[in-house]
């Protein structure tokens, strides 16, 4: 039964991501599942609710290509570079379609994933004190402590239809080991109805130390081997962040035409992520030459 967890990424996205789903691609700077995001774009999934603490380039691409109706987030930008232009164009000018937003803080979203993983309906935090968001996001409420009477912020659990992660390694059963900065990935995965993980490599045995961060195979729907599948994000121990690409994205994405041209050539007209990487590498080599 566990062998069937392994499948090509295209098949996993076809089987487990449906139009209208709520989808969380998580990874805090580290291990962002870019390959999976591209596959969702290539398969023209529509009306998704995209969930992510830090929507950055991959969500900019998915939003700009019309996959999303809604974004649930706490910080949306290209870290160290600036705005994500396709997000702003969608939110401010409804291009290519209107985008609704549901905005929280990092502390809240981390707690919402935790509540989701725990199958509790809500999370409690000391949050949003002096923050104006509760005026606009009516899912930020209050709960009274039944002991102290204190009023605390309450936010709903996040239970995505699908959570997609990238990780370094899976063993032959499909157990996945996530190493390094882990963000809220474990919680986002355990909160979801279905989980797809792309990994750098498959090995026979993980040989992970005790207390490593492991996602057991029986909590997952699909495991797909996609080397460098987090590029331009990084995979600790495998490759570093491609900062040059993250900077270049600002110019590529600023205008609709240049964005569409790039996406067409690098995502829509390729077979898989390996081809995308070849194109990007070739372009960067030309530039350096």
């Amino acid at each position, binding site marked *: 039964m566990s062998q069937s967890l392994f499948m090509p990424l295209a098949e996993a996205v076809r089987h487990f991501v449906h139009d209208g789903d709520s989808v969380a691609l998580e990874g805090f*700077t580290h291990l962002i599942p870019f390959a999976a995001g591209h596959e969702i774009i290539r398969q023209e999934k529509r009306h998704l609710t995209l969930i992510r603490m830090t929507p950055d380039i991959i969500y900019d691409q998915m939003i700009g290509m019309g996959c999303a109706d809604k974004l649930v987030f706490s910080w949306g930008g290209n870290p160290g570079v600036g705005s994500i232009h396709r997000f702003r164009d969608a939110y401010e000018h409804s291009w290519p379609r209107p985008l609704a937003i549901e905005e929280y803080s990092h502390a809240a979203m981390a707690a919402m994933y935790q509540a989701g993983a725990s199958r509790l309906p809500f999370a409690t935090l000391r949050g949003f004190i002096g923050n104006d968001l509760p005026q606009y996001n009516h899912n930020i409420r209050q709960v009274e402590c039944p002991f102290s009477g204190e009023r605390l912020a309450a936010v709903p659990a996040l239970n995505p239809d699908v959570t997609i992660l990238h990780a370094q390694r899976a063993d032959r059963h499909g157990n996945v080991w996530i190493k390094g900065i*882990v963000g809220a990935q474990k919680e986002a995965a355990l909160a979801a109805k279905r989980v797809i993980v792309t990994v750098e490599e498959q090995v026979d045995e993980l040989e992970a130390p005790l207390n490593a961060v492991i996602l057991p195979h029986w909590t997952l729907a699909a495991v797909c081997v996609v080397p460098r599948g987090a590029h331009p994000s990084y995979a600790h121990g495998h490759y570093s962040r491609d900062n040059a690409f993250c900077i270049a994205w600002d110019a590529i994405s600023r205008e609709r035409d240049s964005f569409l041209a790039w996406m067409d050539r690098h995502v829509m007209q390729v077979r898989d992520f390996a081809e995308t990487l070849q194109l990007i590498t070739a372009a960067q080599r030309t530039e350096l030459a």
Partner: protein
Amino acid sequence: MNITWTADEMMTVAAARRLGNGIACFVGIGLPSAAANLARLTHAPEVVLIYESGTLGTRPDVLPLSIGDDELAEKADSIVSMPEIFRYYLQAGRIDVGFLGAAQVDRYGNLNSTFIGGDYEHPATRLPGAGGAPEIAASAGEVLIVLKQGKRSFVEQLDFMSSAGYFSGGDSREKSGATGRGPSAVITDLGILTPDPVSRELTLTSLHPGISVEQVIAATGWPLQVAAQLDTTPPPTAHELSVLRDLHARTRAAHSQSKLA
């Protein structure tokens, strides 16, 4: 000795000096990260640097470009999940100092990092949003705000309140449920503003060398309070500048290497 420095260097040095040895500091990317590491490499070798990606007690050799660089992970005492960093550390009151920047600050140190102009649903300029800031502002023992001073950022009225300073002043923060003490200083390229002990209004208490009170008033969007006894920020020392410049040089060298295979 004729030392010159940039406005960024002055801000960085002034911020670094406020970090005591051994304190736990929640660091953001950019100038706060430079300031915190400068402190660690000069007077505060045991400052505990914490990045919101979950790296506890990290000692990066070069400054990270993103808040989740592998350099931060490799050099950390421990890496914890984001639920843990926000709940067991920040919310639990274990952070002594939090750094915050913003697009706008008002006279009570309240911050906006959400949007400028228009309204929430139809903003003229949508910003990335608050991220970790609302809870850092509420729960860190004290907050250092670092921001270049100008009439567009030091405003009479925020377009949106993302993170709490002293609310409407006086004891309004104490009544809010915020567990931290609030902003202890706003460090700008022109000087240092600190809250009045009673009214909590930001007051110019120190001018950076070569800056006039008039310049600071002109760069502030509200009638600025100025302390009766105005200090001059001690200029960066040669040692501070050399450590800071070495750090930036190492960082540039490390990050200019092509990362593609």
